[in-house]
């Protein structure tokens, strides 16, 4: 285990670096809280980092050694929680930043977890299923001493899925000589997964949009919504908003956007996506070049649920909306956010708006620990209770400190973690 540097390296410095934005936000929020230097350093530095070599016998008989990481950013509030990603560009700095992000996200929705993140440097497109399985099992065995339902609970992330989680759970269970489903979330339903998890982030986005609309005194039927992304977050979020009576005027995927000012028939749109794999070619709408162009359509709500850096200083002046609900991580840059604040656009930040996923992951962990599984209805109701309360919590902090919801979310999260840290004290 290596010592983590206290400050992010300078390579992360520009508008398009969401991790740098996070570091700036941390400092702004800490200033509002009057956080002392010592605690600032504690909360910016990961509690623990682990790097493991993963030797794997490849299908062609050769031996290859991969590198895996697990970073536990802060475990004062409970076991660490966070995804494991497999990608060629995984690096320790990114994993550190993402782990910290999880700490704040878990604290905003007040689930009893700290933040963690892991990754393996590999290119899954060039690996067979059996090679992926071997990597997963050896990586799990390598970091096993710091994992556990009460220590650190991984989840799927980029290029990892239900199957990866099943292998991880099996490996851990075999080592500890007992079935331990609560070691990981995002499992298949057949192995202790939770109902409602696939739709959780999209549902959370819909719930947060609903609460924000109330705050703006807007009714769903008066709202034109532009959604970027047509997958688990954007697609499902748009579908659920459509069901609530919103008019989804545009939705986009990586190939392009579609637009219908009278409102899209979302069930038909998603059926089309399921059939052909993309939005392109959907008849009842006008095709547009790309998702970024669609963001400039006149509307009341924008849900950017695709990738980071979609609303930037380049296009923010042309955005004509009243509400932005960040379904993706970091879709608005820090600079653009500031301009949106000045324009009076309400931006609900990512760590609140897309926390539905981690909330249902938390439910999965609770169910696994009990060994008793909830109906989908119960999962959805519990999710609604947490999302609504979290929105109110953040809105109250925003009012109290007279800051944007984004800064308020960080103030709330940092305050929650700092409070617990002070109560627990420094362990000898």
């Amino acid at each position, binding site marked *: 285990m290596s010592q983590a540097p206290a400050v992010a390296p300078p390579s992360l410095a520009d508008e398009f670096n969401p991790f740098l934005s996070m570091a700036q936000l941390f400092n702004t929020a800490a200033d509002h809280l009057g956080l002392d230097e010592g605690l600032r350093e504690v909360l910016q530095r990961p509690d623990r980092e682990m790097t493991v070599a993963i030797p794997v016998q490849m299908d062609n008989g050769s031996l290859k050694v991969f590198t895996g990481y697990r970073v536990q950013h802060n475990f004062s509030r409970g076991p660490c929680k966070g995804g494991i990603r497999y990608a060629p560009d995984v690096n320790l700095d990114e994993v550190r930043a993402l782990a910290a992000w999880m700490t704040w996200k878990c604290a905003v929705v007040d689930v009893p977890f700290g933040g963690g993140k892991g990754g393996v440097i590999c290119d899954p497109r060039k690996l067979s299923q059996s090679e992926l399985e071997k990597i997963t*099992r050896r990586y799990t065995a390598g970091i096993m001493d710091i994992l556990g339902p009460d220590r650190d609970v991984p989840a799927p992330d980029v290029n990892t899925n239900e199957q990866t989680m099943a*292998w991880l759970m099996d490996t851990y269970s075999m080592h500890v000589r*007992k079935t331990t489903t609560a070691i990981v979330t995002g499992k298949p339903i*057949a192995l202790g997964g939770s109902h409602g998890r696939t739709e959780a982030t999209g549902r959370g986005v819909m719930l947060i949009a609903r609460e924000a609309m109330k705050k703006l005194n807007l009714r769903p039927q008066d709202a034109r919504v532009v959604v970027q992304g047509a997958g688990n977050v954007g697609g499902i979020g748009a579908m659920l908003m459509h069901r609530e009576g919103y008019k989804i005027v545009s939705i986009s995927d990586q190939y392009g956007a579609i637009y219908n000012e009278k409102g899209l028939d979302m069930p038909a749109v998603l059926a089309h996506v399921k059939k052909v794999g993309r939005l392109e070619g959907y008849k009842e709408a006008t095709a547009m070049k790309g998702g970024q162009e669609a963001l400039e359509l006149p509307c009341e709500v924008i849900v950017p649920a695709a990738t980071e850096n979609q609303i930037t200083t380049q296009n923010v002046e042309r955005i004509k909306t009243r509400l932005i609900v960040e379904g993706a991580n970091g879709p608005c840059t820090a600079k653009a956010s500031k301009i949106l604040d000045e324009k009076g656009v309400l931006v609900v930040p990512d760590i609140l708006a897309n926390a539905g996923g981690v909330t249902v992951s938390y439910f999965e962990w609770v169910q696994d620990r*009990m*060994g*008793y599984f909830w109906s989908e209805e119960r999962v959805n109701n519990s999710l609604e209770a947490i999302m609504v309360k979290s929105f109110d919590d953040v809105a109250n902090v925003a009012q109290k400190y007279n800051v944007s919801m984004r800064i308020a979310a960080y103030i709330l999260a940092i305050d929650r973690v700092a409070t617990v840290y002070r109560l627990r004290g420094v362990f000898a």
Partner: protein
Amino acid sequence: MISESEIHGVDYDDLAPNTHSVEDENPFATMMASFDEAADKLGLDPDVYAILRKPDREIQVSLPVHMDDGTLAVLEGFRVQHNAGLGPYFGPLRVQGALKMDDLRALAGWMTWKCAVLNIPFGGSAGGVRMSASRHSRGEVERTVRRYVSSLLHDVGPDRDIFSSDVATDEKIMAWVMDTVSMHARHTENAVVCGKPLTLGGTYGHADSVAQGLRAVLAPAMKLAGLDAKGVRIIIQGAGMRGGVLAQALVQDGHKIVGLSDVHGAFYNERGLDVADLLKQRAGAGSLRGAKGTFDRITNEEMLTRDCDVLIPCAVAGTIHLRLARKIAAKLIVEGAHGAVSSRAERVLADRGSLVVPDILSTGGGAVVNYFEWVQNRAGYSWTAKVVQDRLLRFMTEAWTEVEALSQQQNVRLRMAAHMLAVRRVSQADRLRGVYA
């Protein structure tokens, strides 16, 4: 006592018998035969199939125990753990003079399928001590059970293998199991065993769990058989915790119990029996032998063939055999005991248009409430009797719905559908987990 050779004489190859005759007397082969057919119909991957055909682990322990007269007896204990794909093992603890390894293997496999049908996150196991409890003092039984549990400590536990009560194991024995594990663990560990007394972490609704489970599947089963929701004429064989409790509940639901029996007496009245009165007399006299009332006093076997809409045999395996099946009038037969309808009899009944609800589903209430006990123990929070009842109803209804749907989709009888559902769930879990190391 039974000789050593009876256990060691069982060749391990018995786990893969060459013939799968459904009429085979060997319980393991019978269990595997239904499984084979279900696997076949599902087109199961041969690799997964191979895993499921053998128990994960078999443990045999030698138990030296001091008898009351100062001599030392060396008894034998067993635990078979069939499959852990879905979760910890779970299965009965049996204290029986004629305990056979092959029975335990069959039972362990059976428990895997039963849990899977009911969507309980457990795999199956079975075990016990070869000992006639009635021929020993309570002290001797207690020392034996405690020694048995100590010998298995590394293999049992709330997340490893959970005991449930069975032949000749009562609440008291379950309490000893809990105490032994707890003393070794240095903390109270009640989730390792189910069927405990209420004061030690037992659950409400344990005693009548099978009866309530039967009642829960009866409503949708009657609908499927085209029977009315009320006023259905029902014959129940058995008047104890299953048959008796069920009869009372069904009267409350507005049905007519036209036949009721225990080992000592069988009664029939086409206009309906006074169930409350009969059970009161039975409670007083210890059996139905001398019961008085308005009814025909007939033999148990004759009762099963009398006119009725629903027949619920809650007594022993093989009650409805081939010869009897041809005379049965009921449109719907719900197995209230394990194997109450023989395979040949079921075929005859099916040809005659009668519907048979299989034991693996209908008698599942017991396993469901045992599972609830484990959940409550882990949470350290007890549910009210009503919560137990409501959740039992939910589990039984969901299991029924899935079995019925699969039966219609695959055009197979309910028994085969239940087996297919179970095999599909377990093999899906095994496939997802993959082969470790």
